[in-house]
């Protein structure tokens, strides 16, 4: 899932303080699960912002709250659309995709981010999320015993650890496991260490960081005439 965390109250307050009526929009999907932008967090942020604005003598700013099931899909944003004309700004508690989906849907409405979108990751333990995928568009987990060197190695090395790997830990942080130690240990358990005898060629980043925003098109799923590769 996409993991995000809340921006500090003063930063959000300063973004919205020049508006008169602001709608906080939460998202019921990833950011609800990572406790950053679901219905409860929207309620907390709404309360906090109203107080922060009153303390800045901007108590006249109306801050209302709502949460939709998924901000990154127009069909769900439609449910919100009738309310939006009552406001002059939106503060989204969705991920960056949600913020931009709202901005595209409401061209004349300023849309502000309430969260800092962090990464795609997993719940490690209650209240702790860690990054697992960089969305590089060219998954090679099969070559690395199921552990991604792009996200798990601080240097994104493809051919073994660097000199900063000590006792299974990365030099970047004492609590951070060395990605290559994890890959090695798992490969040893699987009995596939011989796989590392050949040099791995450089990663093809053309599927990831190249060529502007990426697009996935499933033509068999597209409604005729509405499918575009542009």
């Amino acid at each position, binding site marked *: 899932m996409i993991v995000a965390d809340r921006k500090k*109250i003063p930063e959000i307050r300063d973004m919205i303080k020049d508006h008169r009526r602001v709608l906080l929009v939460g998202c019921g999907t990833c950011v609800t699960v990572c406790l950053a932008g679901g219905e409860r967090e929207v309620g*907390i942020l709404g*309360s906090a912002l109203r*107080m922060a604005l009153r*303390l800045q003598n901007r108590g006249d700013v109306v801050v209302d709250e709502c949460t939709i099931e998924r901000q990154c899909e127009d069909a769900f944003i439609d449910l919100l659309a009738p309310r939006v004309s009552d406001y002059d700004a939106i503060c989204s508690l969705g991920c960056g995709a949600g913020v931009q989906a709202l901005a595209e849907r409401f061209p004349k409405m300023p849309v502000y981010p309430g969260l800092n979108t962090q990464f795609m990751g997993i719940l490690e333990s209650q209240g702790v999320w860690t990054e697992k995928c960089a969305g590089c568009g060219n998954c090679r987990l099969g070559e690395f015993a199921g552990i991604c060197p792009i996200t798990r190695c601080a240097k994104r090395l493809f051919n073994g650890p660097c000199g900063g790997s000590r006792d299974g830990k990365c030099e970047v942080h004492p609590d951070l496991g060395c990605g290559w130690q994890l890959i090695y240990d798992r490969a040893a358990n699987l009995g596939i260490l011989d796989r590392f005898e050949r040099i791995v060629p450089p990663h093809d980043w053309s599927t990831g960081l190249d060529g502007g925003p990426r697009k996935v098109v499933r033509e068999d799923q597209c409604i005729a005439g509405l499918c575009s590769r542009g």
Partner: protein
Amino acid sequence: MNEEPLILAFCCHYCAYAAADLAGSMRLQYPGNVRVLRLPCTGKLEVNYLLAAFERGVDGVIVAGCLEGGCHFLEGNLRARRRVERARQLLAEIGLEPERLEIFNLSSAEGTRFAEIATTMVERVKRLGNSPLRPDPKRIEHEVQEISRQAEAMLAGEKR
């Protein structure tokens, strides 16, 4: 301080609420500024309850749960402590003094301690002054009653 401070106390049914009752039975004197709101456990408390109280203008909030290790629901009071800490961080970001919110642990036999806690918080809040978010003095009691009413409704399973 212009007005007498008003303090809301979220009290666990199994300890602090009974301790407050005991304080009354013992005829102990403590300031009359504390309004008690009973919870089935402090683990029921959420950050938005605490913020809702401050938004309505109360000057201070007490969260009173069981002694650590003595929670009727095992770890509700430990969860409450972390939520109170989170709410204090938010109060600092908002621009209110985090000291207006405090969590205490006590047993149901500690009527005397409940009276001490009430006195301590009233004195602390008097030093800090009235909350800058305080509405019209006539409305504040109404706001507190409204919080209690909403909390009772939520506990009764009604939808907000």
